[in-house]
């Protein structure tokens, strides 16, 4: 069974530029999560989808971050404009349903210069 796929694996941008990350969850998984993991810290949930609907986006900085999961499968997380403090690893995870075990992707390491 294929795991959670993410791309790109690495991204370097200048501050004030925009960037997008892509996630393909495990087939059949209805719930998808985006986490931000700043160096030296544990992951922090940014947004959670159930199919194509948002379940929790309380910690998403909505002035610059946006995410979508239009067809209930793949998801895109966007940052526009990026700030220095956005440098982090962005992890995508998926689970079969809202109560299921979360499986994590390899992450995208973002560096904002």
């Amino acid at each position, binding site marked *: 069974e294929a*795991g959670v796929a993410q791309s790109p694996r690495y991204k370097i941008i200048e501050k004030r530029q925009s960037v997008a990350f892509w996630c393909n969850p495990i087939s059949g998984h209805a719930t998808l*999560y985006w986490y931000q993991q700043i160096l*030296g*810290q*544990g*992951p*922090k*949930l940014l947004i*959670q989808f*159930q199919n194509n609907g948002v*379940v*929790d986006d309380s910690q998403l900085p909505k002035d610059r971050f946006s995410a979508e999961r239009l067809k209930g499968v793949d998801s895109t997380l966007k940052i526009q404009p990026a700030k220095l403090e956005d440098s982090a*690893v962005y*992890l995508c*995870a998926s689970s079969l349903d*809202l*109560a299921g*075990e*979360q499986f*994590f*992707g*390899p*992450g995208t*390491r973002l560096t904002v210069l």
Partner: protein
Amino acid sequence: AQTVTQSQPEMSVQEAETVTLSCTYDTSESDYYLFWYKQPPSRQMILVIRQEAYKQQNATENRFSVNFQKAAKSFSLKISDSQLGDAAMYFCAYRFGIQGAQKLVFGQGTRLTINP
């Protein structure tokens, strides 16, 4: 607020020895789950072990076991017969439900080094 605290930023152990990683959490919930995740240098987070709060028996998965003290809100991970492949960041996590959604809160992590 639900918080998870790992007080050991780094730990090291000799290969084949036993090591215990500490974790405490704060919650007013009665129904929740606790997890230990392993994150090797490649960054793919892997579930090591889970514990349901309503179960008194400590969970065990091969060389990995937990000491769950619900009253003390403590959840430590014991790794027996440490192997070089156990070297990684270990995160303690607490999961609780809000209006049907399950939210996972992570600790700061403990970096475990295995000395050959």
